[in-house]
């Protein structure tokens, strides 16, 4: 049916060493993790991948989950389903909720952690949650015959529009590290359908630690796939240290500040998305108040 379309070569490295040999020879090759995003693009097939495909499925180093007293390390090729079943006792509840929200079990079998973080132009729920959990990612960069390894906070992997920036054209995200000290207030809400209707969707996540009558370590991120990846340092600092319960007027003021910030920095977000994000943010703060009063 598609005569003339050349079948791309598929390389299947078994280790990171083998991978580096291949990537130096084929720097334009497509890195294949779960493939759920790549295959959902409208021009996926028939098309030619001139420099071939590097299938990461056989690299056992990328499939490990390790844990010590301070952090959990998750390989990039661990699937959402594996992580959810293996990490029920060790992962923060907000991450479990995020993994569950990523799709049905059938889809979660195919979605990988690294693949989800490395979508080039759309930020989905996992990036949002890992950003507020202060997770970092190990990135190997392959430039001019040299390999450099860096740890980058997940929040800094993306620009303000949510586009991926690994710092090199040939780079591999190998694992992520999540600290095990997390706050007791975690909220995560997805509105709309990020896969089928990404234009109308948004993801809001808040993480904070309640200490006596105050708040500390507040992390807040709101994402609109293909439009914005927004971490408001200003709001975070205003919320950190504030006494609980937060006055309703202050809640209202902060939520409108969020909208003003989003409108100023990202012009493509629709009014409906803004309003929904604002109300969800408000509901998080009201929830925080009600918990502090009970």
């Amino acid at each position, binding site marked *: 049916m598609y005569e003339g379309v050349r079948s791309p070569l598929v390389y299947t490295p078994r280790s990171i060493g083998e991978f580096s040999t291949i990537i130096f020879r084929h720097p334009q090759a497509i890195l294949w993790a779960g493939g759920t995003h790549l295959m*959902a693009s409208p021009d996926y097939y028939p098309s030619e991948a001139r420099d071939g495909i590097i299938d990461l499925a056989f690299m056992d180093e990328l499939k490990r989950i390790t844990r010590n007293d301070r952090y959990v390390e998750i390989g990039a090729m661990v699937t959402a389903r594996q992580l959810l079943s293996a990490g029920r006792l060790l992962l923060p509840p907000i991450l479990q909720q995020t993994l569950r929200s990523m799709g049905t079990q059938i889809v979660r079998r195919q979605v990988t952690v690294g693949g989800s973080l490395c979508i080039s132009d759309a930020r989905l729920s996992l990036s949002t949650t890992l950003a507020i959990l202060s997770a970092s990612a190990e990135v190997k960069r392959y430039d001019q015959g040299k390999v450099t390894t860096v740890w980058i906070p997940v929040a800094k992997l993306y620009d303000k529009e949510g586009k991926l920036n690994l710092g090199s054209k040939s780079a591999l995200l190998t694992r992520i590290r999540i600290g095990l000290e997390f706050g007791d207030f975690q909220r995560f809400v997805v509105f709309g359908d990020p896969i089928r209707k990404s234009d109308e969707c948004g993801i809001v996540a808040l993480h904070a630690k309640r200490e006596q009558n105050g708040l500390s370590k507040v992390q807040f991120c709101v994402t609109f796939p293909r439009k914005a990846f927004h971490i408001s340092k200003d709001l975070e600092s205003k919320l950190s240290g504030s006494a609980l319960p937060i006055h309703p007027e202050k809640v209202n003021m902060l939520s409108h500040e969020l909208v003003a910030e989003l409108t100023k920095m990202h012009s493509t977000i629709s009014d409906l998305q803004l309003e929904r994000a604002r109300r969800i943010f408000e509901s998080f703060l009201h929830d925080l108040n009600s918990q502090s009063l009970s």
Partner: protein
Amino acid sequence: MKIECTIDGKALTLSVNSNKPLSLILMEDLENQSLTSYCRGNACGNCIVMVNDEAVLSCLVPAFRIRGAKIRTFENYQRSRQYRDIERAYKATGSRPCPACFNARSMIIESILQDLSSSNKQHATAPLAKDVKLDKEKIIRELSLNTCQCMDMAELIQIVEVALGYRNRRRRVRRS
């Protein structure tokens, strides 16, 4: 690219483009009639097949990932004992999905039943799933993978419950 795999019990060697989606291989190269999916990876949920006994969306599986895999489509699945449980549940409840989504919905229900049965096996001391309160929210989420609007969610949940009952009864009979 030459790919060796087993589809519906037949060992095949396929000569296809390495990045061709499994759904297209089944529909175009093998003329499998049980699949009707042209969403191109947008998760319409109509192209579900079993790869190594796990339900997957075949539009999201490229050819190079099926090397050595055992693939089972609805054509083969409908001749199995497992399908009988679902078929009987359709009859007992008096509701069936429309012909457009029938195959995919049955495969999703099978996936849910497998999941519920395996979680039962893990808790061997727990009572059988019939007596366990089903996590309806989870079932609704799984069933919503297929976007066809032909059936009410309540009807589908009822089908899952009845099919689970039949499956457990069959297991108990076999065990005794």
